[in-house]
């Protein structure tokens, strides 16, 4: 009796990424499940999400998302990376975290002004109303500033991740040009990010611990959406 040596046929390749100029709203939510090893990758990612509670895990997650962003931007059919090169993920994630921190520093300093002002007002015997007015005034100023940050930082991280160069995170003209020329797709990506975050909260239904894995999935959804907007960019 001859021994069977045939291997099972490989699963069919998923369709090539869309060439439409607009972001596919459904694809970021489903691309994970097209990967034959998606369950393994999500389960391991959930553990790293747990490790992000002690901060260090966050660097691995950022590094993993950077690799995913590069794959999506390059149009790879199955872009979900393996959890194999942990050292590289950590180093890249650390660089991306530094970019985000550098962007946050001026805004943290601005936020310190009302704190110091209110402290001085109180120490020289000023009324609580005056301190509250300082806080309120700066609070109103901070809203647009935070909105700008929410718009800007994902693109800065995306540019640094896709190019693999730290300095690209501070290429202000390129980042501004990307947002201006691809505003519709970028807004769609932000909307996908919000929807993904909302859905991920239902992971708590999966015996509480499920939220770790759905939260990681929502990170992948957001990364795919932003990276796909980059792939479809108009220069």
């Amino acid at each position, binding site marked *: 009796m001859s021994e069977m040596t045939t291997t099972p046929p490989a699963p069919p390749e998923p369709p090539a990424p869309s060439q439409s100029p607009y972001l596919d709203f459904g694809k970021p939510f489903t691309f994970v499940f097209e990967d034959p090893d998606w369950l393994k990758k999500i389960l391991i990612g959930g553990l790293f999400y747990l490790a992000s509670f002690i901060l260090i895990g966050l660097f*691995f997650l950022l590094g993993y998302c950077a690799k995913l962003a590069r794959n999506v931007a390059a149009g790879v059919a199955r872009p979900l990376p393996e959890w194999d*090169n942990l050292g590289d993920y950590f180093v890249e994630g650390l660089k991306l975290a530094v970019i985000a921190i550098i962007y946050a520093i001026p805004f943290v300093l601005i936020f310190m002004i009302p704190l110091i002002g209110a402290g001085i007002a109180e120490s020289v015997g000023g009324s609580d109303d005056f301190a509250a007015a300082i806080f309120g005034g700066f609070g109103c100023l901070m809203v647009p500033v935070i909105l700008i940050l929410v718009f800007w930082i994902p693109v800065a991280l995306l540019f640094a991740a896709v190019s693999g160069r730290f300095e690209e995170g501070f290429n202000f003209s390129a980042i501004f040009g990307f947002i201006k020329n691809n505003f519709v797709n970028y807004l769609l990506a932000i909307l996908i990010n919000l929807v993904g975050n909302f859905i991920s909260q239902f992971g708590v239904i999966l015996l509480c611990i499920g939220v770790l894995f759905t939260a990681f999935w929502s990170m992948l959804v957001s990364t795919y959406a932003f990276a796909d907007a980059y792939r479809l960019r108009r220069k």
Partner: protein
Amino acid sequence: MTLGSRIAASLFAAAAAAVLAAAAFCSYAIAHGASARWRILFRVLCHGIESRCLELWGVSMPICARCTAIYAGLIVGIVLFVIVPSLRRRLVPSVVLALAIAPLAIDGLTQAFRFRESTNSLRVLTGMIAASAFALWAMSHIERGSRRSEEGTLS
């Protein structure tokens, strides 16, 4: 054991230990006069229904017995992976993981759909088994991936 596995094992164990330590500290603080509202901080991780939680210093922990056992089980699985060399040599099959998670899923889901009410000892037992097996399974996959990438770097 590869460097990647060592990093992952330390990270996962430290994170699980941090959650358990925070929950224990919250119980200690409440038992010594702090407001029970501190339990709300743990709502992002767990429902924290008091009748389903283990007691520490005479007060309910802020995370349920199942979650407590899951975090403890992760530590047990990781420690087993580190100290038993034979566990590192081959991949833990996914079917073993599925079998280990099945009791937890049955216990949790039959309770969620209100067919029955579980007990804390059952929550702890099923949570420990599932989480230990999960940690072993995940670590064995990380070990294989890291070994491949290390061999790729060397060759």
